[in-house]
């Protein structure tokens, strides 16, 4: 009796009830560790053992698991919120107010739901960046990357549909901005270019999205169902595939000795979830989710901003028509992202972060990764552009989408009037064609043919001539209309007969204004004597840029083959084209390069 103490715990553990639930003991033996993972439905997605290097936090930062955990938090808080929220326009706003004022812990719950949603969008994007930089999308993991991109789209869509539910001014007009982009889809949108003949405001893409022609109760219930059931269901299915694939394709890092998942990986995951909960709790207790006045279709707030993750696209509306900024570009981004594993034939870089080095590009020192300079640079350029545009849309845009420095007080009394002119269609087309021709490589066969026909120096010379020629064409095609074309808005909407005068006298076209004042001050002879060589110089510089990349382009072509190369270079040129268009707008006051109002088609 003295050597065996009676313990409740030991007694319970020996009962049939206990044994029916827990089929393993709790000793710390390798067998138990295996059973804990293998025998548990929630944990058995994990392997029993994994490599020691794989579980190091600094490899993945736990972003994928964090995304999943945030999804769980959102589901739980969302379900709890559903007990008090009614999706009708006359009830929704009041229910949100009730949650904030009358329901126990309602404000906390609402805040947690909102902030974990924002956090999930950030974490999901960071997870994608991590997977890219560690090369974990390369074969055999391409399909999982595509599933991941789909999950990203679903995350954004979930966030967008949820945004409408509070039914306040912020919600209503943010969704209106997004719905208007749908109306501008090519072919299927009522206000987009090349609208199909059977498309009307009563059956276009926008109508299907919001269930009507204006945002009202039909939209609210539709978004509610999408947000709470339809998309989460599909999301779960895809998450299952995603996690399954991580296991089946084996985790991207498999170096070092193996350790048991229980406890080493599981404990880290659990700590991560705890830390996230703490952060979310503090955030939710300190900062309230925004709620503006009740939704009112008659009054539009100025400015009306889309949710932050779409503000980048809304900012692009300054430089592009809605069908490009809101439909084409996002579609290309998604397709481009999905295509990455299929066009990236470089097998290097899987399982570790890229090592960065300082190199020289011509004479310019650049900080590039050693092993995948092109892929990493292009991808990160895209990511940085995305976030810079969001930053500008959030902090630098005020009423009427005018420019305000961050922190500058907004004024509704500003009288800025921008003078923006279109380049005549022919010249604009010339600029675009020559720009895209910059991407053309010189295939090996052509180079060989040139060498045999015209000597060994010929390929390099031809390449140089091609690029300089294209650069000159671009520069000429831009400056000639700026200097000589007639102003199509004269006399009804412009007081000047030429583009040169109209833009030269404006406040938003620094380059043309400078040229105009040059000619005014020193007379046309001297003025043009300075301007024309300057144009030539610009053409040479553009050509020079092409020459610098010529060798790389040719190598890329040889490596990828024509189809993949065309895809990659087209997407790359479109991405840098966005930057180019921004420059054209800000420095030259150019609105459209090609404008065909009849088809609603403007670039």
């Amino acid at each position: 009796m003295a050597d065996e103490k009676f313990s409740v715990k030991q007694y319970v553990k020996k009962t049939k009830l206990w044994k029916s639930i827990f089929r393993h003991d709790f000793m710390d033996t390798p067998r138990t560790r295996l059973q804990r993972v293998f025998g548990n439905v929630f944990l058995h997605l994990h392997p029993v053992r994994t490599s020691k290097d794989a579980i190091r936090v600094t490899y993945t930062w736990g972003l994928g698991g964090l995304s999943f955990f945030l999804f769980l938090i959102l589901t739980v808080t969302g379900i709890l919120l559903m007990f008090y929220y009614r999706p009708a326009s006359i009830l929704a706003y009041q229910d949100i107010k009730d949650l904030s004022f009358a329901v126990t812990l309602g404000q906390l719950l609402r805040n947690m739901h909102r902030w974990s949603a924002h956090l999930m969008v950030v974490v999901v994007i960071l997870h994608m960046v991590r997977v890219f930089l560690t090369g974990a999308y390369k074969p055999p993991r391409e399909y999982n990357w595509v599933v991941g991109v789909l999950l990203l789209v679903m995350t954004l869509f979930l966030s967008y549909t949820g945004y409408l539910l509070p039914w306040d001014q912020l919600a209503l007009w943010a969704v209106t901005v997004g719905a208007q982009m749908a109306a501008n889809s090519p072919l299927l949108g009522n206000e987009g270019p090349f609208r199909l003949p059977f498309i009307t405001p009563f059956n276009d893409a926008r109508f299907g999205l919001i269930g009507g022609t204006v945002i009202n109760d039909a939209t609210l219930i539709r978004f509610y169902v999408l947000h709470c059931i339809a998309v989460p269901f599909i999301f779960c299915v895809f998450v299952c595939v995603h996690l399954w694939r991580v296991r089946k394709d084996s985790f991207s890092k498999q170096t070092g000795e193996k350790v048991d998942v229980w406890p080493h990986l599981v404990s880290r995951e659990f700590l991560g979830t705890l830390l996230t909960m703490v952060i979310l709790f503090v955030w939710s207790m300190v900062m309230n989710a925004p709620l503006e006045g009740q939704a009112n279709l008659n009054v539009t707030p100025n400015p009306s901003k889309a949710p932050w993750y779409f503000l980048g696209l809304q900012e692009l509306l300054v430089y592009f028509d809605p069908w490009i900024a809101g439909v084409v570009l996002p579609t290309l981004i998604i397709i481009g992202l999905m295509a990455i594993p299929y066009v990236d034939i470089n097998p290097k870089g899987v399982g570790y972060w890229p090592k960065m080095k300082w190199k020289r590009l011509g004479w310019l020192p650049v900080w590039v990764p050693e092993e995948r300079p092109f892929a990493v640079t292009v991808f990160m350029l895209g990511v940085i552009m995305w976030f810079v545009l969001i930053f500008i849309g959030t902090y630098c845009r005020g009423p009427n989408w005018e420019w305000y420095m961050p922190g500058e007080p907004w004024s509704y009394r500003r009288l800025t009037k921008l003078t923006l002119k279109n380049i005549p269609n022919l010249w604009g087309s010339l600029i675009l064609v020559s720009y895209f021709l910059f991407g053309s490589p010189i295939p090996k066969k052509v180079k060989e043919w040139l060498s045999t026909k015209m000597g060994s120096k010929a390929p390099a010379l031809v390449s140089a001539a091609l690029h300089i020629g294209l650069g000159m064409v671009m520069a000429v095609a831009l400056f000639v209309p700026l200097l000589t074309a007639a102003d199509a808005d004269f006399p009804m909407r412009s007081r000047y007969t030429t583009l040169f005068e109209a833009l030269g006298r404006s406040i938003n076209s620094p380059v043309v204004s400078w040229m105009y004042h040059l000619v005014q001050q020193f007379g046309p002879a001297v003025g043009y004597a300075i301007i024309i060589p300057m144009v030539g110089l610009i053409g040479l510089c553009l050509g020079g840029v092409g020459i610098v990349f010529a060798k790389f382009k040719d190598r890329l072509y040889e490596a990828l083959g024509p189809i993949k190369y065309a895809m990659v270079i087209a997407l790359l040129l479109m991405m840098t084209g966005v930057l180019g268009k921004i420059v054209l707008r800000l420095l030259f006051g150019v609105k459209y390069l090609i404008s065909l109002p009849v088809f609603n088609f403007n670039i």
Partner: protein
Amino acid sequence: MGGWLLSNLRYLFPNVLYEPTLSFKAGKPEDYPLGISEKWKKTQRVWIVRKADGFYCFWARCTHLGCTPNWFDAENRFKCPCHGSNFNKDGDVIAGPAPKPLWRCAIKRADDGQLLIDKARLENRPGQREQGDFFLTFKSA
């Protein structure tokens, strides 16, 4: 499978709408003199404009902050009393802080020959607003 998905898609496009109709009949086109008519400004918040070759219709709402401008025949412009925005006959901003031209409503002829204005559909882009559903050709005899 494909059929099921397509029928789902059709299911999601409603056949009836619970939206207030923003369209109204504005009388016979012959009854309108050339120029800007303020007949419907108070009740429907629109101006009907007749030119030699047809009709268009403005939504009487300043694009600055939503006040109702007034038409001044002698100065040939709309002037908004709130912050001084001026618009010409085409709706373009010629003075003041308004950021965009005046919106035009869709206009067509109803079956009984009256003008049918639809305020739910608006357009203000030069090039778009002078054609399609936003300009009704009507030759003055």
